[in-house]
Every structure is written in C-alpha cells, then in structure tokens.
C-alpha cells in the first residue's frame, strides 16, 4: 500500500467526516463540544422549539465564565441578567444531562483554560465551542472551531457541523527567542506579518524550533490568537510534551489505556512530507517584546519601534492606521514605550494560566503598582487560582498592589462588572484591542505579554520588560 502523506489537519478531518453535503460543505463530527452561558441559551431554546434532544449529551461540557463576577461569586449573582444566564445554563445542563463545571465544583474557569486542564482536550479530536478563541485547544493537535449560536444548536442536535474544508498554512518559527520574549510576542509578530485577515480560509499549523521548545501553555497562547490572524483554527503537532501534560488528568485515558492512546496521538502529527497550501518562515530570534498601539491585534510593534505614520503605511492600510491613531489619540512616529496607562489587566484565555501568573509575579515582586493605576490579576480557572495561591503568588501580587480576583473572563470583554471607564488606557494580557472591547465605548487597550503588563503596572507606563527582569 502506498503511503499518502497527510497533515494533522487532513488526518483529523478524514477521521471525523460523516459525509459530503450538496452545498459543498462537509458534515464533520464534533468529538468534544464546550458550552458557556452566553452563546448556549438561545441554542437550547431553538432545540426546544424544534422538539429535539441533545444527541450525545456526554460529549458536551459546560462552564460559566463570561458574565461571572470576579469579586463576589456568591449566589444569586448581584447582576440579575447574569444570574438569569447562569441559572438558565444550570437548568439546561440538568435537563439534558450535560456535565456542568460550576464554581462549586472547583473546576470552573474560562472554557479554554479548563478544557486542557481537565484533559478534555486531546490530540486528534475535533472540538467546537460558541466562542471564537476555541482555537486555543489546537495546542494539543486538536482541530478546534469557534462557532455561532445556530451552530451550537446544530452540534447539540446532531454532534456535527456543516463546514467547508480549509487550506493549511504551515508557519515555521525558526531560531530561538530572546530573553523577555514570550509566546504572546510570537503570535503578535505572526499576526503583524500575515495580517488580521491573512488567515482567511486557512488552518494554521505552527511549527519550527521556537514552537517545539514551547511549553503546552505557551502553545495555547499562540493557538488562542489564530483567530485574530483570520485563521479558522490553529494547531501544533502533538509531541512528548503533549503526552506528558495529559498524563493523569481527570478526563485523560486511564492508566491501562494511556500508552496505547498516546502512541495514537503521536501518530496524528503531520507526516514529514505532508502537503501544505502555503509555508511561511518567521525568524524567532528577531522578535521583540511587542505591544499593540491601535484598534486591532495587527496594529502591533516591537517595544523599541515607533508608532507608524499614515504616510509610511501601504495605501490599503492607511485609512485603518488613521482611524486607529485618532481613536487611540496617539502621535504617529513617537515611541510606544513611555505611554502612560491607567489600568493593568492580567488574565484571559490567552494569558491567564499558571505560567503566565508566575512570570507576572516575578516582575511584580520587584516593585509596587504605580499610584493611580488600577491593577487586576484574574486567574483563568479555579485550578489556576488554587495552584497560584499554593505557591504564594496571590501574596506577591497583593503586596505589590494588585487586586487578586476569582476566575473568569473579566475585563477581557467586560460582560461582568470589570470595565474600563471613559478613555482609560489599559495594558492587557488579553487578545482583542477593538474599540470599546473592555467595557467603555471609548476605552483603549494595549495588548502585551503578562510580564509586560506587570512591568507597565509598576512603571505606570509602557516599558521594556527586559530592563526589569
């Protein structure tokens, strides 16, 4: 039998293909479905209207993250709408027999943090969730799609999606990262290079020495922001690190089956001679700590660089740059370093994991939050919170003047009470710097790594973290 070399994407796609549809789409089986309180209630309502059951209730897992307050999570929640959304999720899970990881289980957290943590996310799976940052799970060599509410209904009803096949772009990050440069900087550099729409129609396969050297948590940060580069999903081929991360996790295969499953996981990796629709190489050794200066994640630059001028900008991006400069009220041609900040936010599904908090704490212990700066640390999950507290990170943050909060999405999108006010500038470890994203219609967001956020909190302005730690 001749060997047909395939990428991981192709292998996963073929294993999950139910049939081809007349529309040209593929009916793809979704192995693991994750839901939360914002995009699922209407899907359940539609299901009820149609009189349909949930087809594989044991393959859907729920948590509450977007609307949950991070100061006081006692019930009923003080925000009535938030309480209604949470109760509705609880009711739906009860009624349809879906496992719910609520705050009382000790397993609650941001959906993209708890999936891997619980071992629900595994290589070779298809995963879907009504949230665009579902691409995070690709760090394990899963093909993971963010979907809309009617697709949530489709998955509940049929465990399938109707979806068109994607092209695959391999992105090789070569060389070695400089000290003070993190996974966040790598993905910001990739988006800067390829553009916020550059990934349209693609799955991104991240590879090369820099990605190989990354921990699982760092790989999650990279995959998380695939969507910000326009890609439908992003993944890293599974390796020994992937296997070791999953060993012993609650939903990982049990000991008797683990080695056999691990061998299958490794075999899902792209074949050495797999075909790609595109290959891009990026030199990792030239990446600097990066900061966004504008209104989408592609508007980012290295800390030593200056904010672009419209005149130097290619014509098709000029209007966007002008609009961004006007909204941010920044001066073209000036340095981003030294920009004063009002708020510092460490958390989110991009950078709210234990390794992120450790790096931020390492910086935080060198000083105190600058007077006038509001600084928040929001662990990505209850498990992260527990681990951080066991290590004493909460004490370090508190001593340095940061607020230590309960887990949730918090100020990443500000559907809970954590919001920017007015024109505040926020150094944020989250993933979107869109206008108004952090809860104030005129608020301003500067995306950067958690260590850079901590450094900015201490200095009261954007600084190069390499000068501190």
């Amino acid at each position, binding site marked *: 039998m001749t060997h047909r070399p395939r990428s991981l994407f192709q292998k996963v796609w073929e294993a999950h293909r139910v049939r081809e549809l007349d529309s040209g789409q593929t009916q793809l089986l979704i192995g693991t479905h994750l839901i939360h309180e914002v995009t699922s209630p209407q899907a359940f309502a539609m299901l009820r209207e149609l009189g349909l059951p949930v087809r594989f209730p044991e*393959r859907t897992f729920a948590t509450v993250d977007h609307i949950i307050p991070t100061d006081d999570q006692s019930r009923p929640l003080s925000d009535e709408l938030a309480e209604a959304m949470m109760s509705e999720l609880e009711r739906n899970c009860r009624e349809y027999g879906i496992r719910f990881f609520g705050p009382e289980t000790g397993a609650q957290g941001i959906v993209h943090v708890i999936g891997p943590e619980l071992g629900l996310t595994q290589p070779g799976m298809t995963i879907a969730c009504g949230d665009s940052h579902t691409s995070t799970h690709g760090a394990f060599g899963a093909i993971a799609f963010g979907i809309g509410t009617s697709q949530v209904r489709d998955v509940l009803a049929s465990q399938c999606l109707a979806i068109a096949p994607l092209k695959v772009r391999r992105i090789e990050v070569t060389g070695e990262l400089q000290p003070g440069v993190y996974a966040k900087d790598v993905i910001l550099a990739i988006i800067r290079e390829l553009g916020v729409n550059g990934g349209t129609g693609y799955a991104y396969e991240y590879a090369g020495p820099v990605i190989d050297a990354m921990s699982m948590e760092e790989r999650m940060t990279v995959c998380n922001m695939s969507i910000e580069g326009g890609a439908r999903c992003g993944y890293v081929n599974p390796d020994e690190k992937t296997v070791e991360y999953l060993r012993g996790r609650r939903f990982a295969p049990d000991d008797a089956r683990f080695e056999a499953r691990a061998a299958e996981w490794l075999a899902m990796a792209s074949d050495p001679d797999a075909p790609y629709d595109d290959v891009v190489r990026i030199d990792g050794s030239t990446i600097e700590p990066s900061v966004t200066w504008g209104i989408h994640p592609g508007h980012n630059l290295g800390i030593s660089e200056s904010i672009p001028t419209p005149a130097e900008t290619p014509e098709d991006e000029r209007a966007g740059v002008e609009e961004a400069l006007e909204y941010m009220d920044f001066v073209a041609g000036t340095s981003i370093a030294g920009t004063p900040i009002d708020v510092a936010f460490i958390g989110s599904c991009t950078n709210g994991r234990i390794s992120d908090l450790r790096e931020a704490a390492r910086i935080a212990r060198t000083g105190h939050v600058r007077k006038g700066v509001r600084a928040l640390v929001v662990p990505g999950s209850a498990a992260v919170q527990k681990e951080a507290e066991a290590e004493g990170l909460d004490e370090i943050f508190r001593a340095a003047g940061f607020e230590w909060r309960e887990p949730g999405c918090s100020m990443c999108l500000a559907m809970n009470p954590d919001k920017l006010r007015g024109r505040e500038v926020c150094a944020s470890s989250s993933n979107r710097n869109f206008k108004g994203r952090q809860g104030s219609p005129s608020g301003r967001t500067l995306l950067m790594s958690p260590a850079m956020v901590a450094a900015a909190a201490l200095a009261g302005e954007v600084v190069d973290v390499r000068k501190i730690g």
Partner: protein
Amino acid sequence: MSRQGEELVRIDSVEGTGCVVRGDDIDTDRIIPARFMKVVTFDDMGRHAFEDARKAAKGKHPLDDERFSNAEILIVGQNFGCGSSREHAPQALMRFGFRAFIGGSFAEIFAGNCTSLGLPCVTLDESDLTKLMDAVELDPTQSIRIDLEARTVTSRAGEMQAGIPDGVRHQLLEGTWDATRVLLEAGDAIERTAAALPYIG
C-alpha cells in the same frame, strides 16, 4: 412546534404586505442593541427590534407605523445588517413578524444568518428599489410577492428582477436551508463515525 420527522420546508415564494425602513448601512447594533445579548432566549427579541431607533423616533419609526402593522416583508436600503455578526438581529426581525427582506444589498453574515432561519434576502437595483419603496409608502395595503423560482419581486409597482445568490436560492428552494435538519438526515452515519473514533467508540 415539532419539525422532527416532517417534510423539508421548501421556500419558493413569500407573499405579504411590506414595511419600508429607509437608510443605508443599518448595522446589527441598530437592529438589536448590544445590551440584549445578555438574555437567555430569543423569544423576547421581537419587542426589542430597532428599540433605540424607535425610541428616538418617538412613535414615528416605520415599525410603529400602523399602516405597516402586520407587514411580513421588510424593505431596506444598502448594506443592511452590517457590523457585528450577532444572530440576534435576524431573530429579532423574524420574531417581530418579518419573513423576508428586500434591499439594495445585505451584509454577508447577516444574509447568511437569515438563510439559516429560512428568511430570504433579495436585492433590487437602485431605481427599482426606490420605485418599490415609494409605491409601498403610498399604498401599504398592497401585496408584494417575492418569487424565488422566477427571481422576481411583484407589486403594484410592477414586476422587477430580483437578485439572490445561486447557492442560497438552491438551499431555500430545496428546503436545505435548515442546517440542523440536513445534518440529522445523516442518521446512523453519525453514530458510525463516532464509534470509529478511539476517544468516543
């Protein structure tokens, strides 16, 4: 309502009275303000359709105009439904009572969301659209017929050529616009695919 096991719903035409909302680039935030995202069902969404615009118009908004009450076809300008991709927008309009849209053009995601609800969005060229809007405002009682088979819009203003992408037209005519239904048609093949996967089977 249970559609399980019933026939596919084929949509070859929509007939009813119209309501005219003039203006271009009406975004989904205007159709359904963002604060209504914090809800658990779409049921109430109809009431909130165009809520802020209607409040601002103090009862003078077309959706509050008695002459247009019971209208089933919404007639709009260019680039209707632009902005955020929220599915709440077509849901709100459907629950308000609209079953189809005629406009100059529609934002792609909005139109896609409409298709998945079985709500056709058809386009007219500019002069025809103006003629139709004028005619409906003059006589709101007249019946308008969107014929997807013939690709026409017929009213007292005459028969006009209507645009709709081939793929969408096919889905509506064949009754395959409802993705859930199409996916469920695969039947046992779903379980068979699942059973062959090492982590499920």
